[in-house]
């Protein structure tokens, strides 16, 4: 796949033909990686080598991403204000955390929402504080509402009444019913206060990486899969520049109960982006957690690619279904899973019938 080849070896960007640019821009757009592609062009000093027509699309993406970052920084300020008023502390997760800490990997990263984590005891207080500041829950069906409230690790998405921004409020990093048991309290160790904030924190680097990995490999629909994997690839590079990081990462993964997500993050980051890792680290990881499986490779090799005509291969559709089922399998016990999936498919059928009736 052209996009992957270019992200692995950006130094060849300026030798691409126009026909290749045509495909590259489309693949990057569909993977939500146009901004990151621009970052690679700039970092490798090849701005001059990009033909005018594709450059316009990259510039447009750069503008879009930079404004999103401005907006995220503003949101962070407002969330901090709401938390301060209620005397609560919250942790920024994923994209918002990359931007808030000024990580290099933030450059070019697109956004759709901001995620924060609070203590489960603080959930009600946080929800009401955010609602005073304008974040209101999106209306859900009665079943979805109950499903979120009872089983999930987050409440239904909150949308700001004026700015229309989306906020996901989490009280754990995985559902209560999930198969892996996470040491959620452990995540509070080594948090750093966000610059300019009084009540907003970020996870320490290793935990930030582990959380992003956990999130990606529990996700059922990988609309941003490749972008999120690219985040991990860049984190390995950026955090791993400090040699002591690798041992620390293993210690944290064991302590938090997140060895499996780490294994997958490493495995697919290597398979897709050829991320370099210290041999000692790989050895320890494998002796602890094994190597992954052919079935997982079949699914994730395909499902992590963007949904673009040029990336479809034999089994892509099946792989996406398997990833969807796997994510639910990981998130809940079998009985609940069967119940949940049947309610969901009934609701889908009913929506279809309603649509047919009104058409």
């Amino acid at each position, binding site marked *: 796949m052209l996009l992957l080849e270019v992200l692995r070896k950006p130094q060849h960007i300026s030798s691409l*033909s*126009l*026909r290749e*640019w*045509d495909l590259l*821009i*489309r693949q990057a*757009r*569909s993977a939500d990686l146009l901004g990151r592609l621009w970052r690679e062009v700039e970092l490798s000093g090849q701005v001059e080598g990009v*033909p005018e*027509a*594709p450059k*316009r*699309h990259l*510039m*447009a993406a750069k*503008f*879009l991403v*930079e*404004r999103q970052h*401005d907006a995220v920084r503003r949101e962070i300020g407002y969330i901090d204000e709401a938390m301060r008023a209620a005397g609560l502390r919250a942790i920024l997760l994923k994209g918002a955390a990359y931007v808030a800490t000024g990580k290099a990997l933030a450059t070019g990263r697109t956004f759709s929402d901001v995620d924060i984590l609070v203590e489960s005891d603080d959930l009600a207080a946080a929800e009401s504080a955010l609602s005073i500041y304008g974040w209101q829950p999106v209306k859900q069906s009665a079943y979805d509402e109950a499903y979120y409230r009872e089983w999930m690790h987050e409440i239904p998405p909150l949308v700001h009444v004026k700015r229309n921004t989306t906020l996901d409020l989490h009280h754990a990093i995985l559902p209560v019913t999930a198969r892996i048991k996470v040491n959620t309290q452990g995540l509070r160790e080594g948090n750093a206060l966000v610059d300019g904030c009084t009540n907003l924190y970020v996870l320490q680097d290793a935990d930030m990486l582990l959380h992003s990995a956990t999130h990606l490999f529990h996700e059922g629909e990988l609309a941003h899969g490749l972008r999120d994997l690219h985040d991990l690839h860049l984190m390995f590079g950026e955090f791993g520049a400090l040699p002591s990081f690798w041992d620390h990462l293993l210690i944290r993964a064991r302590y938090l109960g997140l060895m499996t997500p780490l294994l997958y993050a490493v495995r697919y980051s290597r398979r897709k982006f050829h991320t370099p890792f210290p041999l000692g680290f790989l050895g320890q990881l494998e002796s602890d957690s094994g190597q992954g499986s052919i079935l997982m490779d079949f699914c994730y090799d395909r499902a992590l690619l963007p*949904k*673009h*005509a040029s990336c479809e291969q034999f089994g892509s559709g099946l792989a996406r279904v398997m990833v969807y089922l796997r994510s639910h399998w990981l998130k809940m016990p079998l009985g609940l899973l069967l119940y949940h999936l049947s309610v969901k498919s009934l609701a889908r059928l009913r929506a279809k019938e309603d649509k047919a009736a009104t058409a």
Partner: protein
Amino acid sequence: MPPFVVRFRSNVPSLTPDFLTLYADYELADVNGFADFHVEIRYVPNLKRLFDPEIRFYFDGTPSFSVLPAQQSFPTLEWGLNWCVAAHSHHYLVVHAAVLERNGFSLIMPAPPGSGKSTLCAALMMNGWRLMSDELTLYDRNTGHIYGHPRPVSLKNRSIDVISSAFPDSVMTTPVMTESKGMVALLKPPESAVLSAALPAKPRWLVLPKYEQGTEARFERQGSARTFALIAEQSFNYDLLGLDGFNAVGSLVDQCICAKFTYSNLDEAMSLFQNIEAHLHEVVSVTP
């Protein structure tokens, strides 16, 4: 459609005659070159296809929300192409406005639907003004130039008759009924406008048109603060461009003479636009 290259595919044969007529003067692009937008109009594969077929617009494989009757294929393609340009051209300030050129200077006409903007634009285009676009004005904030991308002009309801009786030689598609806009017909742009599509123009006149039955055609000068607010509101990416957007609208408005134009009769309107510069200097009443 400079400055854009589009790769268009369709399995809807009824689209072909309109497409070939209205896009006859456009240059064919190199198949091995770069296309800005890959678009498609495709039948919705359902049973209705047998008796009352429906179509959908696709942007590089991603379907648009709306499913429409196949009769509306051509207006849907035009709507889709406008969306492509408006949603992806952040290297420009993209303003929802018609734009025409004369002697290197451009006349920009922002206006909400129903203001008679397209009618006026069509008539001006038939009267020696070069059509740059009837929907999207592209302002390059680095060079201060206006770019267009001339495409068929979308006429609605009464203006279809007005234009076809005023200009019997004009070429347009058979009007079709649409849910959102009423009757729609698309008017072919002159060959000369298509061939000089890549030529930019300097911003000069910023005119807000308004059709008002029975009124005498007249210009009224408008203050730049009010015009600024209007342009900001009518632009697709003002807020997205942030400070750049603010500066772009400011510099665009500063380069222009701003006015309101009220009319009911097209001939009267045309004679005023013939000497637009003189008329705009005559009227002095400025509303802030």
